[in-house]
């Protein structure tokens, strides 16, 4: 037994040595504060601390989940998140492919920079611009009316609002994915394309049978990573765009919890909701890992 262990160590020690600094830092800064989770089960009073605060079991969870509107909030969060992931991935991949077709390096770089820029505009500012563009008298509705259709209440119509959130977010953030997918494409072996050309494959065929399959692993990875955040459907965006009239379809968990007034020391409820989000994300990530492995034979982590 001891011998086996030492043999294993001899094989691994270099890897372990490499991992050491990261593991130590992570242990201190990520695992160190983990005990804070117990706050979710306490009536937390900062002055009494973790040791002195009253243990209340599941009360914090009960309070949140007994709210009729909280369940619809969970549904909204899922709905908005999932479609953001789907359309966001689609947009990033398609745009990366389009950019990849541009052979001149100059324009390619400029375009790539431009689509990354909206990532940096905060939602406070972006929301101001969006309400201008999408309002009743905004430019979008003027076009719609010029085409003879009825104006669309993008911001205040309950059934439209989630889609406004989804598409504005996709538009703002797809540049991020594009960067990753493009970096992947540039690392594809050019010989693969050369031999495909010799076989008489056109660009569509090349894209379809070389580029896309090479992208699949990274697409799966990015999706799994996004699933880890599925219950955070974009606080800043929703907070800056929603209003009471669209709460039934537009309110997400984070905005709901924010309105509780966490600033006012309601740490415990915030922690309880956070723990709930973590658990759900864990289940989703595990499921997606299994699916990715069973269907594509691909190990994400």
């Amino acid at each position, binding site marked *: 037994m001891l011998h086996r262990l030492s043999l294993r160590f001899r094989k691994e020690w270099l890897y372990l040595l490499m991992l050491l600094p990261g593991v130590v830092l992570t242990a201190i800064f990520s695992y160190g504060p983990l005990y804070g989770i117990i706050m979710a089960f306490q009536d937390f009073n900062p002055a009494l601390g973790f040791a002195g605060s009253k243990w209340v079991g599941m009360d914090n969870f009960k309070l949140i989940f007994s709210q009729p509107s909280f369940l619809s909030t969970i549904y909204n969060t899922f709905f908005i998140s999932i479609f953001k992931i789907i359309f966001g991935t689609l947009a990033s991949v398609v745009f990366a492919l389009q950019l990849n077709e541009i052979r001149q390096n100059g324009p390619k770089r400029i*375009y790539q*920079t431009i689509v990354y820029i909206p990532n940096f505009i905060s939602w406070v500012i972006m929301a101001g611009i969006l309400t201008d563009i999408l309002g009743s008298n905004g430019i979008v509705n003027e076009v719609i009316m010029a085409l003879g259709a009825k104006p669309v209440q993008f911001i205040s119509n309950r059934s439209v609002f989630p889609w406004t959130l989804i598409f504005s977010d996709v538009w703002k953030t797809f540049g991020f994915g594009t960067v990753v997918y493009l970096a*992947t494409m540039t690392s594809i072996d*050019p010989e693969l394309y050369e031999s495909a050309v010799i076989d008489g494959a*056109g660009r569509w065929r090349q894209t379809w049978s070389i580029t896309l399959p090479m992208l699949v692993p990274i697409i799966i990875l990015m999706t799994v990573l996004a699933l880890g955040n599925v219950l955070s459907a974009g606080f800043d965006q929703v907070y800056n765009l929603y209003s009471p009239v669209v709460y039934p379809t537009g309110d997400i968990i984070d905005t709901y919890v924010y309105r509780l007034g966490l600033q006012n020391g309601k740490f415990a409820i915030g922690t309880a909701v956070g723990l709930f989000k973590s658990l759900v994300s864990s289940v989703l990530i595990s499921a997606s890992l299994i699916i990715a492995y069973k269907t594509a034979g691909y190990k994400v982590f």
Partner: protein
Amino acid sequence: MHFRTRGQKIFNVVNYILVTLVCLSCLLPIINTLAISFSAPSYVAAGQVYFWPLGFTTQSYEFAISNGKFFRAFGIAIERCVLGVSINLLMMITTAYPLSKSKDKFPSRNFFMGFYVFTMLFGGGLVPWYILMRNLGLLNSIWALVLPLSVPVSSMAILMNFMRSLPQEIEEAAAIDGAGNFRILWSIMLPVLTPSLATVGLFSFVYHWNDWFQGALFMNNPNRYPLQTYLQTLLTNFRDLLRQSGSDYYSLLQRMNEQTGRASQLFLGLVPILVVYPFVQKYFTTGLVMGSVKG
């Protein structure tokens, strides 16, 4: 290498047009914001500013830059980014490389992978984090801003997958030549990984540059705020200031307002990113894999 058919030519034209349109839609908000940042508040409050400043003024920028605080905060932000990105890159490389190995080569791999994935999902919250920082004596220190998330797991996973996707022959060839793990990582892997390192490095830079919350939380002395925290403090209570009696602010309000202030804040924060980005981007567009194997 590319012989062109008519269909491809049409495709190219259509492709160019589509890409240009998308880029245009991404560009307009930023131009609008730029115009607002240089406009007089009365035009902005009236919603008249679109793509060109009205009543041109640099007041909003002067407001932010006027005192020494801006440059001090700028310096701290640079310091944080250099430290933070360097640490992140080193940690990501040394973490992703062992984890990119198969279970046969590195039996404990899955344990450590799980160790990291867990941190992506579970956290203890702010209070114990703050207590930890205080007990480690890191409050008010730049290390409080760069050490906590030294291994960004998402980026590390991306890098790890890049490493895995590299053709096995590269490493095997080197191993046969008698190169050790560190040698392989250093002289074979790193050059090949440039585009992906540039990618995760950029993400790390953007994170450290944009984060303002940790600065507000862990810095006891406003003189040690990094730039985004400083810019944030300028504007968050702008509206509340109006409610207070007896303020010198009122004359300033004629020359700038919350909206122009935010707009200029965006650009002051964005400039370094726009400077760094094209520099980093150089690495994205150069495929290197084959070059290194052949060479």
